[in-house]
């Protein structure tokens, strides 16, 4: 019997981890999963199934016994195919042997990129509302997250002025995500040029998460990595989850100059070893004729977006028309409820699940994320219910 009082498990948790709040998405998920017969606009993944030829090729690979490790960087033939794809699609040439790393989703790649360049105390600029992992990943690396608000009035574009207000001599990194989760915002070529000039002026590394690039509905997607002089300071991240409807395959990749790739590789080789080989085989198949797979899905998303944006605006719920991804981010402020209360009551009273904007940062207060990665009939029904709910709120 020891008299030494032992710590509770909770007290044993590291400070960094303890101080990171639980994800708002998870909170909301727990509430929603109690409910059945709801229409969910809460998903961050496509409703489409992975293209059959990709699944079929994966089954074949499994039958052949393709079940081993791969090189840490990923299958050479996959990296070669990725290099060709990225050059054709984004206009940046990366060396598949030295400048490319296959990862377990963009999720892992985000973590690697930030850890590879951040020293404790370094400041990282990211725009908010944004994807849920950005601030935590910065904190895990010992960095200081500095949020830059994007606003509905600007179509949630990130402007140089907003960045200039937050940049300091300690700023080391700028994180970008366009088309954006949760707002669907895209950038114009001029915006991208401005952001590149900003990064150069302050000598920042740029991590650009372009996972929704192919799901762009107006104009052409432009990568900041393709701006003159930017390749040297940019870590380009992409993956198969969204455009190919392959979330469960967990496959992404990072492209960066050799030294930065090598730095990410150092972490990746010890914590992940390699991405799953079956998923790498699947990705190789997915790169066979990407437009054939993606084109019809993009067309369908665009039609749903057209319908849904109009339905919400017609119902007096102001919603900007996003240029990409598969999310609407309507403003519900004028209806007199907080994001969270609005989402809870919408679920309670109309059985529609949409995620409170605050799950994507405090800047998301007053907004709701409605994914249109769900069937047209459901979107139609959900839009009607939101309109009815908004009407009721206005009358009470």
């Amino acid at each position: 019997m020891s008299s030494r009082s032992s710590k509770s498990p909770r007290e044993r948790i590291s400070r960094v981890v303890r101080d990171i709040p639980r994800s708002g998405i998870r909170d909301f998920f727990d509430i929603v999963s109690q409910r059945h017969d709801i229409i969910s606009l809460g998903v961050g993944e496509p409703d489409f199934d992975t293209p059959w030829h990709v699944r079929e090729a994966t089954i074949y690979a499994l039958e052949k016994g393709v079940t081993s490790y791969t090189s840490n960087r990923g299958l050479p033939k996959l990296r070669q195919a990725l290099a060709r794809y990225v050059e054709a699609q984004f206009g940046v040439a990366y060396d598949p042997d030295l400048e490319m790393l296959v990862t377990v989703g963009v999720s892992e790649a985000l973590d690697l990129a930030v850890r590879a360049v951040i020293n404790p105390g370094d400041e990282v600029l990211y725009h908010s509302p944004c994807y849920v992992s950005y601030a935590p990943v910065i904190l895990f690396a010992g960095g200081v997250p500095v949020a830059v608000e994007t606003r509905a009035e600007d179509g949630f574009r990130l402007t140089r002025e907003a960045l200039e207000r937050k940049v300091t001599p300690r700023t080391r990194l700028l994180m970008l995500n366009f088309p954006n989760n949760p707002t669907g915002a895209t950038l114009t070529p001029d915006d991208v040029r401005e952001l590149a000039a900003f990064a150069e002026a302050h000598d920042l590394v740029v991590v650009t998460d372009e996972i929704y690039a192919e799901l762009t509905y107006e104009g052409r997607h432009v990568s900041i990595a393709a701006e003159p002089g930017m390749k040297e300071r940019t870590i380009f991240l992409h993956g198969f989850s969204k455009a190919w409807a392959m979330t469960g395959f967990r496959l992404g990749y990072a492209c960066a100059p050799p030294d930065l790739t090598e730095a990410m590789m150092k972490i990746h080789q010890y914590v992940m070893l390699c991405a799953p080989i079956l998923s790498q085989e699947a990705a190789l198949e997915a790169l066979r004729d990407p437009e054939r797979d993606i084109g019809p899905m993009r067309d369908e998303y665009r039609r749903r977006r057209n319908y849904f944006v109009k339905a919400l605006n017609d119902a007096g719920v102001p919603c900007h028309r996003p240029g990409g991804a598969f999310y609407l981010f309507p403003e519900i402020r004028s209806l007199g409820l907080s994001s969270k209360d609005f989402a809870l009551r919408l679920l309670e009273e109309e059985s529609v699940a949409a995620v409170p904007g605050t799950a994507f940062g405090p800047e998301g207060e007053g907004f709701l994320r409605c994914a249109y990665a769900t069937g047209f009939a459901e979107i139609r029904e959900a839009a009607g219910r939101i309109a009815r709910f908004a009407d009721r709120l206005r009358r009470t």
Partner: protein
Amino acid sequence: MNRELLDLLVRNARQSDQDLADQLGLSAEAVAGQIAELEAAGVVRGYHAIVNEDKVEDPQVTAVIEVQVVPEREGGFNRLALRISRFPEARSVYLMSGAMDLLVFVEGRDLREISSFVSEKLAPMEGVSGTRTHFLMKTYKHRGVLMDHEDEFEKLKVTP
């Protein structure tokens, strides 16, 4: 011609003009006008339901019949193909490349009805030099639609 509208109609012709319009970013009047044009020009020839016959009370029997034809000096296969097409039993008639000439889908109440159509009407027709009849046993997919509702894998309802 609005190819996207046509594709939407092929997939689901029952959507309202307004719903079609809101998806395409057009007005309902514009959609109605374009559909009327497609119909008038004979591009859209009709609308029908995709039926899983296995779930119908007294299901239709379908046969696929390969037909060999002696081409006519003038008109090739057309005249004969049209004659066959006029029989209501013949649901679809196609001109084919390869070993057969025409492919005919025939529907009837039972095997007897179909075989009597083939032996009494189709095979004896002048110009028909041979037929091979295959009965359709089960439909897995028709016009891009799977007939069986598989148990759908249920995805999470909220994800980041």
